[in-house]
C-alpha cells in the first residue's frame, strides 16, 4: 500500500514537473562576446531569461568565429546574441541548412554601419577630406609610422571578415597607386588603439571601422564618401569574398547583425526564442548605451542593469506582460 502511494506520488510530481517544464527552459548558455555591445546584449538576455522566463541562464566567454563553430559542431552555447553575419556568412548559412542553427531575429535593427573613416576635426578644417578623392589628393598628410614616403590606411586585423572587404576596396580604390600602404593592426585592440592615439593627439588617421561601437561613440569620425553609392550584389558576390578578381568601388551596405541560436534551443524553449526574436536595438539606442558604458567604465553586467532600470519602455515591448512584471520585480530587488 505504501509503495502504491509512493509510486503515485512520484508520478504526480513528474506530471506537474512536466507541466512546469513547458515554461521553464532549464539550463541555457549565452555567449558573452568580447566587445561592449555584444556583452551588453548578452547580459540583458541573461537577466530577462533568468528572472522572466525561469531559465538557468549562464554566460560563457566567446568570439565570433569560435562561438559560431562551437554552436554548429557541438551545439553549445545555446545563444549568440550578436553575430555579424557577414563575417561568418558561409558558416551560418551551412549551419542553418544543416538544421543546427536557427536565426531568431536582428540584434541591431538598423544593421551595422561599416566604412572608411577620418577624424571629424580633420574634416572640419578641410571639407575636401569627406570624399575619397580629397583623401587621395592629401595622401602625404596620413603619414605611415614606419615609412616616410607612404601614407597609412588602417585595414582590419588578420582573420576578421572585414579584412577581406577592406582589402578588396583598397584595391578597387587604387589606394596603393595613390601612395597608401595597407597596415594590418594585428588585433581589434591595435586598431582601436591606433584611433585613440591619433585622436588624442589631434593627428591624422584613415582606415576602416564600424558602428555601433564604443570607439565611434567616443571619438567623432566622419565616414568617407566613395561617390559610388551602394552596390549590394557586387558587395555580396565579390568584395566580401577572398577571391575577388576585379573589385569595383561600392560603399558598405548595412551589415546584418543577428541573434543566432541552436535548433535544440529554438525547439525546446519556444517562448524564450520568441523573446530573442523581438529583442532588438536601433543604432541610436546602442550608441547612447555605449557612450554611457564608456563614461562609467561599465562592463556588460552593470550596463545591462542600467539599461533595464532606465529604459523600461524599450524592453517591456519585447516580453509578454507577466514576464515583464517578473523582470520588473527582480530589478526592484537589485
Amino acid at each position, binding site marked *: 500500500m505504501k509503495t502504491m502511494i509512493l509510486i503515485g506520488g512520484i508520478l504526480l510530481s513528474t506530471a506537474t514537473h512536466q507541466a512546469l517544464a513547458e515554461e521553464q527552459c532549464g539550463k541555457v548558455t549565452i555567449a558573452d562576446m568580447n566587445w561592449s555591445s555584444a556583452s551588453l546584449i548578452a547580459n540583458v538576455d541573461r537577466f530577462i531569461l533568468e528572472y522572466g522566463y525561469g531559465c538557468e541562464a549562464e554566460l560563457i566567454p566567446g*568570439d565570433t*568565429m*569560435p562561438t559560431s*563553430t562551437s554552436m554548429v559542431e557541438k551545439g553549445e552555447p545555446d545563444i549568440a546574441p550578436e553575430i555579424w553575419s557577414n563575417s561568418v556568412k558561409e558558416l551560418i548559412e551551412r549551419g542553418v541548412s544543416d538544421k543546427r542553427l536557427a536565426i531568431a531575429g536582428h540584434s541591431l535593427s538598423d544593421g551595422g554601419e561599416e566604412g572608411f573613416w577620418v577624424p571629424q576635426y580633420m574634416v572640419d578644417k578641410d571639407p575636401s577630406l569627406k570624399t575619397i578623392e580629397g583623401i587621395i589628393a592629401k595622401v602625404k598628410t596620413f603619414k605611415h*609610422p*614606419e*615609412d616616410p614616403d607612404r601614407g597609412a590606411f588602417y585595414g582590419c*586585423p*588578420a*582573420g*576578421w571578415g572585414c579584412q577581406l572587404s577592406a582589402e578588396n576596396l583598397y584595391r578597387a580604390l587604387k589606394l596603393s597607386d595613390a601612395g597608401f600602404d595597407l*597596415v*594590418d*593592426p*594585428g*588585433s581589434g*585592440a*591595435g586598431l582601436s*588603439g*591606433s584611433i*585613440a*592615439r591619433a585622436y*588624442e*593627439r589631434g593627428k591624422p588617421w584613415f582606415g576602416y571601422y564600424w558602428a555601433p561601437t564604443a570607439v565611434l561613440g567616443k571619438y567623432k569620425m566622419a565616414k568617407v564618401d566613395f561617390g559610388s553609392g551602394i552596390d549590394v550584389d557586387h558587395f555580396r558576390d565579390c568584395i566580401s569574398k577572398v577571391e575577388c578578381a576585379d573589385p569595383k568601388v561600392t560603399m558598405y551596405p548595412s551589415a546584418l547583425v543577428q541573434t543566432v541560436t541552436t535548433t535544440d534551443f529554438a525547439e525546446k524553449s519556444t517562448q524564450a526564442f520568441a523573446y530573442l526574436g523581438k529583442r532588438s536595438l536601433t543604432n541610436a539606442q546602442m550608441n547612447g548605451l555605449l557612450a554611457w558604458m564608456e563614461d*562609467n*567604465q561599465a562592463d556588460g553586467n*552593470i550596463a545591462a542593469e542600467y539599461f533595464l532600470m532606465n529604459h523600461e519602455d524599450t524592453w517591456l515591448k519585447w516580453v509578454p506582460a507577466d514576464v515583464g512584471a517578473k523582470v520588473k520585480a527582480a530589478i526592484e530587488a537589485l
Partner: protein
Amino acid sequence: MADYSWLSKFPKMDRSTLLEIRKYLDGSFRDFSREYGDVIESFFDPLLDFLIWFEKLLVQSPWWAVLLSITALVYFTSRSWKLSLGVVVSFLLIGYFGMWEDTMRTLSIITVCTLLAIVLGVPIGILMSRSNRTQALVTPILDVMQTMPAFVYLIPVVMLLGIGKVPGVIAVVIYAIPPVIRLTNLGIRLVDKEVLEAATAYGANPMQRLMGVQLPLASPTIMAGINQTIMMALGMVVIASMIGVKGLGQPVLKSITNQYFTLGLFNGLAIVALAIIFDRASQAYAKRSQKHMQGGHHE
C-alpha cells in the same frame, strides 16, 4: 540594524569610488601621453630606423645569400655539420611552404630583441649580484615583467608609440629579459668564494675579478639564461603580432580567428624551427667557450 552581508560576500569598495580612481588614472595617463608622447617617440627613432633597415636587409636580399650567411654563422659558432644541415633543411622547407618572407621578418625583429635583452640584461644581472639591496629592489620588478599580462602594459605603450615595430620590441624585451637577469645574478653569486679570495690574494682589482674570474665561471648559468631569453622572445611572437608586428605571428592569429588549423600549425612549426636553431647554436657556442672548464670542475 547591523548588516552582516560581509560574512558571505567580500565588502567591496564603493563602485563610484572605484570608478573615480579608474577615471583619474586613465585621465592622467592620457594627459601624460599628450604632453610627452612625441618626445618619447623621437627617443625611439634610432631603434626604429635600425629595425626597418635590418628587416629590409633580410627580406630583400636574395634567399640563397641569406641562407648561406645563416648557415655559415651557425657553423662557425657551433662547428657542427649536423646542425648546419638541419638549418639548411628547415629553411628550405620554410621557403617551399611559402613562409620565407614572414620568417625573415620574425627573424630580424627577434634577433634585435634578443641582442637588446642580452646587452641590457647582463649588466643589470651583474649589478644585482653585487648588492643584496639591489637584488631585493629588482626582483619584484622582474616578477611583474614576467607575469603581468602583456596587453596590460601594451595598452599604454600603444597609446604612446602606436602600433608597429617599437611597441613590439618593447613587449618582447620586457617579457624576455628577466631570465637572463636572474640567471646572471645567480651564476655570479654561485661562484666559489674561495676562488674569488684567491684572485684577490693574487692582486686582482674588482674589474679583473669580474671579467677574469666571475664571468667565466658563471658562464654556464649565464648561457642558460640567454637561452631561456631567446625561447621566451620567440614565444612572444604572436602577442607582438597583435599590435601590428609583421611576421609569423600574423598567420597564426589569422588561423586562430578563422579556425584554420593547418595554417597555424605550419607557421607555429616555423617559429619552433627558429627557436631550435637559435637554441642549439647558442648552446653549442656556450659549450665550446667553456672547454676550459672541462678540467677538474664537475658541475
